[in-house]
């Protein structure tokens, strides 16, 4: 006698539940208990990877016998505390590695130098705060993290190789080992300092009542100061500051600056421990 559609329309109890619940919010106060199963403190252990393909192409083309690396990676650890259901404050420490192609230098009798990419270690420290929209319950779910901190860079000592040509050789390249103190003094190198601004979008999904799996994307902008120096170095053809070594501290600084003074998008994943 009637269509099913009409009857169903009359009987959509679930809709009533929705409507009712929605309205009820206006009349009944409620506040969330913070934390994941009441746990407000949590530590993130994460790995971040990114693939700076363009830079690595550049790196490979401008380095001596350097293989094209597709991924750079880093580790970080963060302690956070949820101060509200959708707001947390924390402290992050991280370590990452990347390669830089030292600039070609012309020093003394040498020209047309090519060096193997140098591995750089980066340590970062930053206070950060984490926030989430709607009725978030940190640490679970999607959250936004913002942090400002410091980076410290150092070249890693290794048996790097390179090739040098001198005028006497009429342009014939000669393989060299950069660890040789004639070329660069790794032991006495200065730590390069920089600043970092980070925004991270993370999703945390519980694995059990203490551990969560997290993944997300990390957007960083690193800034290594003394930019004027850097501009000065852009046309670097003569490494006059360094007479003792073929590859100078400035060369390393310059390479780090070129690599780091840009924003990066990184994929990040890891485990969170809540307590």
């Amino acid at each position, binding site marked *: 006698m009637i269509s099913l559609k009409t009857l169903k329309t009359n009987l959509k109890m679930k809709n009533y539940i929705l409507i009712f619940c929605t309205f009820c919010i206006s009349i009944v106060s409620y506040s969330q208990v913070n934390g994941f*199963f009441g746990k407000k403190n949590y530590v993130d252990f994460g790995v971040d990877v990114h693939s700076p393909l363009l830079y690595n192409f550049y790196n490979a083309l401008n380095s001596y016998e350097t293989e094209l690396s597709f991924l750079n990676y880093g580790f970080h650890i963060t302690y956070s505390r949820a101060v509200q259901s959708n707001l947390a404050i924390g402290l992050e420490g991280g370590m990452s590695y990347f390669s830089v192609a030292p600039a070609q230098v012309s020093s003394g009798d040498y020209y047309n130098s090519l060096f193997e990419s140098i591995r750089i270690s980066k340590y970062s420290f930053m206070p950060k705060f984490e926030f989430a929209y709607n009725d978030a319950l940190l640490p679970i779910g999607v959250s936004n993290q913002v942090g400002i901190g410091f980076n410290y860079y150092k070249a890693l000592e290794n048996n790097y190789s390179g090739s040098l040509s001198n005028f006497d050789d009429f342009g014939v390249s000669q393989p060299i080992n950069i660890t040789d103190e004639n070329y660069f003094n790794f032991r006495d190198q200065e730590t390069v300092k920089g600043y970092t601004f980070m925004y991270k979008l993370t999703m945390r999904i519980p694995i059990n009542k203490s551990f969560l799996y997290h993944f997300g994307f990390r957007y960083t902008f690193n800034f290594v100061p003394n930019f004027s120096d850097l501009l000065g170095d852009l046309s670097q053809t003569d490494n006059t500051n360094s007479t003792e070594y073929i590859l100078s501290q400035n060369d390393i600084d310059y390479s780090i600056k070129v690599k780091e003074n840009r924003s990066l998008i990184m994929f990040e994943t890891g485990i969170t421990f809540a307590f």
Partner: protein
Amino acid sequence: MRIIILCFLVFTYNVCAQQDFNSFKTLRSEGKIPDDFSRLTVEKIQEDKGNTDRSLSKAQEKIFLEGIHYGIDQLLHSGMVIYGDEISNYVSDVADKLLKKKFASLRGKLRFYTIKSNASNALSTDQGIVFVTTGLLSQLTSEAQLAFILAHEIAHYQEKHVVESFEYRNQRNRNTIKQLSVYSKEKELIADKVGIEIYNAAGYSKSQLLPSFDVLMYSYLPFEEVTFPKDYFNTDLLFVPESFFPNKKFEIKAIEDYDDSESSHPNIKKRKSEAVSVIDAYKKWGDNINFLGEDRFYYTRNLCRFESIRTDILNANYGDALYSIFILEKEFPKSDYLKRMKAQSWLGLAQYKSDGTINETIDRNSELEGEIASVHYFIKKLNLEATITMSLRQIQDIKNDLPNDEEIYSIWKKILLLSADVKKFNINNYSNLTFNNAVGAKEEVKDSSEIKKELESLNKYERIKRKKNYTDPTVFDSTKFYHYALTDLIEDEVFISKYNHVRDSLDLIQKEIEEYNDLSYYEKRKLNKEKAKTKEEGSGITEFILVEPAAISYKKRRVDYKASERIKSRYEEAINNAGDFLDMSIYTINSKNLNELGTLGFNERSTLTNLLFQFSQNQDIDVFPVDFSYLKEIEKNYGTSKIVFTIVEHAYSPEFSSSALWLIFYPPALLGYLPIPFMNGNVTELNLLVLDTKTGKVDKGISYTFNEPTTKLILESRMYDILKNLKN
């Protein structure tokens, strides 16, 4: 001898099983729970796969089966459907009589259930279920009419109209309203034709066929068309002037030849005309009108009529309920059920009036038709003070009638609270004389019409002064009839003391609220902290009844039934785990454990679902539960009055900002932007409601929206958060 004993047992069973209308209780399901109710939807779909008898593609079959099974299961579990009760059994017995000869084989394929609804409808499904509403049954005048309606529905089933309509709708260029209407009307006429064949084969009288269409046409009106007397409310203590009732009749507007161009059914004129030609084609007709006896028909119809009052109250149609009570009171003047329903109706009217939403419960002026219009008209004429007085008067009278009735006492407490809360109602304004005594006490009595005339003869300023200082003792204003309606109460010290106590308490609360609002932000914060400290530990909820949690998952803006089932299962487990973790007792009533809980569980679930439905009618009204006595039973069985309803909805739909299109000119930024909408694509909404049947109020209403998937642990952590809050 054995046969005699058996007959005796059957007879006594029938007598015992019959409802005494004086102590009527709303019907509930009885007997073994049928498979239709206890089996899971996914099982039903699985079983029907490949059995639709049509050339549906796999994808179409999936949509069709999911549509019919989830739709019908939603109806079966809506709290409105009952099985194994006296009405369903009667309908089933009529079907036994109806399906004869070549139609006898259909009987085994069909099941009959009752829907408690005041819409006059019947419905058959592709699964072989036939539903009949109590609203339809309460309108009929014979068993034969029911037989024809059933025959029509069975014809739909036999002719596979449900699946055919689905196929039709899925064909290209065949989905405009007009096209669907034409198609649907053809099917209805076929169902009428086949229905008449079934009806004829059963031996029913043809005299009842055409009146069946009249039933359908006028079924929007109450089940009887009886004049509502203007002195209906008058008693020794109450007198309502006739001016409060309409002095004209409200015309019944329904016509047979209405425009059906966009209807699913042909108009009554066409149906009757087609039916006449089909009837004439049969030479041989039976003469049976009531195979099962007139008494059983009228008894069943009365059951439906009693049910219709409850349904009206459930839907907050208090005007309709009062008219139905008036009709049934004549036959059952001693019915406690009618008295309780009347008290509930008046309480509802007073609550809606004080809320300013009375128009939601009564018909609009343009909708006034027939005799019932008098009741709606009367309610409309009452101002707030009059409505509260009328309610208090009616409920007090019923309380005097049933002094030991727990339900009436609870209603009375609510009306007392309401009357003390409404500022316009002041007991001090009430006379200690009854209306008639007050009229007699005046030397020169003038009625309101005379006052009106006098006022018209004055100028503006005299009129204002006259109105403002109107204390002429010789003038009697009959429009204030309600001031003379509580003579017994204002002299009742117990009542006055209770009324004053409630009023003082409410004033105190109001004062506290005002003082709190005057505080600065920091003062409020300090006060809240102090209150939290002084709050007794463990005073929260430690046990509750969980009514089957609902879950809806959307995919491409449509409900994904399978995903919904999965989420529902996870959600339920999450709630129970969180409850265990917090050492809370949760009693779950759901369709999964219906086999275990049986009909008792099903009935409890229906009662609670109806409670939620009733609450949903108007969230600002402190509703009185229509199934009060059953709720008390549940409270007693489970040892808790806290009922939890909850629903979770989920959709994954990443939203891309249109302005992000510009980023294609700077690909690295586009690369950076893309993860954001994808990661925020999960939208989950969780709603939870705690009702307290003891107070009849919403204890908590919680709503969360979050960008997370619906994994079990996420839901569990959410529930942990919610339950912990409830517990503390």
